[in-house]
C-alpha cells in the first residue's frame, strides 16, 4: 500500500471522483492554475480542464451560491474556501440558501455540494488563518459536517461527501496536511458519513474528539498506558453525531472527556456533554468534562498560541483529573 499524506489523500479523492463522475467539479480561489494555496488541487486543471476546475474571483458568497445553482441542475461541485476562516463571507449562502433548499422546496430539490477548506491552528496563522468554525454550523439542520483526522478518513470522507445528496461541510486541518502520512489501500474505499471510529480502546476514561486533537488524545492515551486505560473516540462526522458509539463507550468507562481545538464555549462538546448528562446519568462515575481552545481569538504570538490550544499535556492532565473521581 502506498504512503499518502493527508493532503494527497484529499487530492486523490477529488481526482478519483472527477474521473468517475463527469458532474463533479471544483470551484474556488486559485484552485486551478496554481493548484490551491496549499496545493490540495494540484494537477486537477491539467487533467480535467478549466471548465471543471474554476478559478473564481474573490467571492465566497458567489462560490457557494453558484454551487447551489449547479447542484440543483445535477452537478456535484466541490467549493473551496481558501482558508476556512473565509467561510464567514459565504455564511448566508450556506445557512439560508443551501441548508434550506430541500426543505423550503418541500423535498423537490437536492443540494449535493461539498464546501471544503483548511482550518485549524498550530501553524502561527493568527486570527484569520487558524479558526475552527464548525460550531457556527452545528445547529443548522440540512447540513452535514465532517472533520477527518487521518489520511484514510480524509480520502474516504471526501468521496462520501461528494456522493452525498446534501450539503457537506468538510473541515480539513492544515496542521495535518503534510505531517500525517500513512499507508492507504490502492483499491477504492469510502468512509461513511455519520460513523465515528475508535482510535484507542480502554476501560477507565473515554476521550471524545475529532480533527487534529485526535492525535494528541491518542498520544496522551499512550503516555498514560499502565496508569489509566483510555478509550479515544474519533467522531469523524460532527453532524450527524454517532451517538451509538458515544453511548457505548461512555457506558463502558463511565467517564467522558470531550476535547476539541475549537473554542470551548458553545463548542460541539457542549451539546455532547449535555446529552451524555441527560441520557447516561446513571452510567457516569464523574462529571462530563471538556477541553477546548481558550475563549479568546486565535492569537498569533507563539506563547499565546500555545496557551490557547489544547495539546497532549493538557489532555493528559484532564484525563488524570477525571480518572480521580
Amino acid at each position, binding site marked *: 500500500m502506498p504512503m499518502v499524506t493527508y493532503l494527497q489523500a484529499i487530492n486523490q479523492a477529488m481526482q478519483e471522483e472527477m474521473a468517475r463522475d463527469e458532474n463533479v467539479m471544483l470551484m474556488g480561489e486559485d484552485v486551478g492554475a496554481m493548484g490551491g494555496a496549499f496545493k490540495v488541487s494540484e494537477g486537477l486543471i491539467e487533467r480535467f480542464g478549466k471548465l471543471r476546475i474554476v478559478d473564481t474571483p474573490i467571492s465566497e458568497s*458567489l462560490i457557494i451560491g453558484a454551487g447551489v445553482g449547479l447542484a440543483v441542475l445535477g452537478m456535484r461541485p466541490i467549493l473551496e474556501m481558501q482558508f476556512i476562516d473565509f467561510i464567514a463571507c459565504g455564511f448566508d*449562502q450556506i445557512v439560508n440558501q443551501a441548508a434550506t433548499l430541500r*426543505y423550503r422546496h418541500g423535498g423537490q430539490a437536492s443540494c449535493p455540494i461539498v464546501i471544503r477548506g483548511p482550518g485549524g491552528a498550530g501553524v502561527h496563522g493568527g486570527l484569520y488563518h487558524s479558526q475552527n468554525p464548525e460550531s457556527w454550523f452545528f445547529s443548522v439542520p440540512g447540513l452535514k459536517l465532517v472533520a477527518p483526522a487521518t489520511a484514510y478518513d480524509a480520502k474516504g470522507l471526501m468521496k462520501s461527501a461528494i456522493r452525498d445528496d446534501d450539503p457537506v461541510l468538510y473541515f480539513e486541518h492544515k496542521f495535518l496536511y503534510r505531517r500525517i502520512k500513512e499507508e492507504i489501500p490502492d483499491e477504492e474505499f469510502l468512509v461513511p458519513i455519520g460513523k465515528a471510529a475508535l482510535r484507542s480502546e480502554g476501560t477507565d476514561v473515554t476521550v471524545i474528539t475529532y480533527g487534529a486533537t485526535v492525535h494528541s488524545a491518542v498520544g496522551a492515551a499512550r503516555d498514560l498506558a499502565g496508569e489509566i486505560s483510555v478509550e479515544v473516540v474519533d467522531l469523524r462526522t460532527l453532524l450527524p453525531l454517532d451517538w451509538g458509539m458515544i453511548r457505548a463507550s461512555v457506558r463502558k468507562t463511565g467517564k467522558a472527556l470531550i476535547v476539541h481545538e475549537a473554542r470551548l464555549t458553545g463548542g460541539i462538546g457542549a451539546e455532547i456533554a449535555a446529552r451524555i448528562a441527560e441520557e447516561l446519568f446513571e452510567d457516569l462515575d464523574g462529571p462530563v468534562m471538556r477541553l477546548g481552545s481558550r475563549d479568546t481569538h486565535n492569537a498569533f504570538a507563539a506563547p499565546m498560541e500555545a496557551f490557547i490550544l489544547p495539546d497532549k499535556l493538557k489532555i493528559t492532565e484532564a484525563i488524570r483529573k477525571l480518572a480521580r473521581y
Partner: protein
Amino acid sequence: MTEQKERELYFWMVLVREFEARVAALDKQGKLAGGVYSGRGQEAATVGVCHALRPDDWVFPLHRDMGAYLVKGADPNRLMAQIFGRRDGFSKGKDSYLHGGDLAHGIFGATSMLAATLPVAAGMAYKFRMKNEDRLAVAFFGEGASSRGDAHEAMNFAGVHKLPVIFVCENNFYAYSTPNELQFAVENVADRAAGYGFKGEVASGNDLHTVMNVMQKATDRARRGEGPTFIELKTYRYHGHSEHDRAAYRTEEELVTWESRDPIELWEHYMDKRKYDLPAIQAETLARARKVVEDAVAFAEASPEPTGPEAMDDLYATPVGEGR
C-alpha cells in the same frame, strides 16, 4: 404580434392582478397567515420578462413576482395552496408565500435575503455554458437588493464568463420605505452594468411592449453567447411593501401619477387603438382569470394542513442522526 398573442399577454397580466387581489382579500379576511406581498402595478415586468422564456429556462422570482410563477408554468392551484401553507403547496407548508419554488417548471424559490438568488442563477448559467445547453437563467431583484454584495459578486462572475444570465432589476422606487436617493448614488442602477463588462438597459417596466423589446435583445444576446444583460425596469408597487404596510412614506400624488400609467390600462388602450373589440375581450378575460383564481382558492381550501411532525421531513435526502 398576432391578436391572439396580444390577448394572451393581456390574460396573463389580468390573471396576475386578479390572483393577487384575491390573495390580498383573503389576507384582509384573516384567512392567511404570514406576509402577503403584492406586485400590483408591476404586472408588465414579470409577464413581459417571463413570456420571453422557454420551458427549460430558469427564473428566480422575488417575493413580489407572482407573475413569474404563473407565466413560467406553476400550477395556480398549487401556488394558492403554497400561500395557504397547505400540504399541496410547493414547500408543503414549510415556508410561506413565494419561498417554495416549482423546480419542475424552472422556478427557484427565493430566501428572504434578497439578491441571494443571483449567485445561484449565475451558477446555473455556468452549467448551461459548460454543457453547451441553449438555456438561460433570469434573476429578478429589486433596486434595494442591488446594494447587497451578492448582486455584485454574481454580476462580476457572470461578466467574467459571459454567462447566459439576465439580471432584471424591478426598480419600484422603494425598498420597503427607503427611497432610491438613500439606496444608490447613480442615476440608474443599470448604469453599473458597465462595471461588469456587459450591457445595461433602462426601460419602462409598465409598458409591456418596452419590456418585451429589451427582453428580446437580452435573450438574443445570451443565446448568441454574448453574455449577460442588466435590465432595469422602472415601475411602481401600488400597495405597501406588504399588506400590513400603509406606505405612509410616499405621497398620494406620486401613487396616482403611477396609477395613471397602469400597465394593464396601457395595454387595453393599445388593443383599443388596434380596433379590437375591447369590451368583449375585457369581459371574457376577466371571467377566465377569475375562474382560475376561484378554482385555485377552492383547491387550496380543500388541501390538508400539514401535521406538526411533518416539520421534521425534507431536511435531508434520507433522515439522519438523532435530531430531536
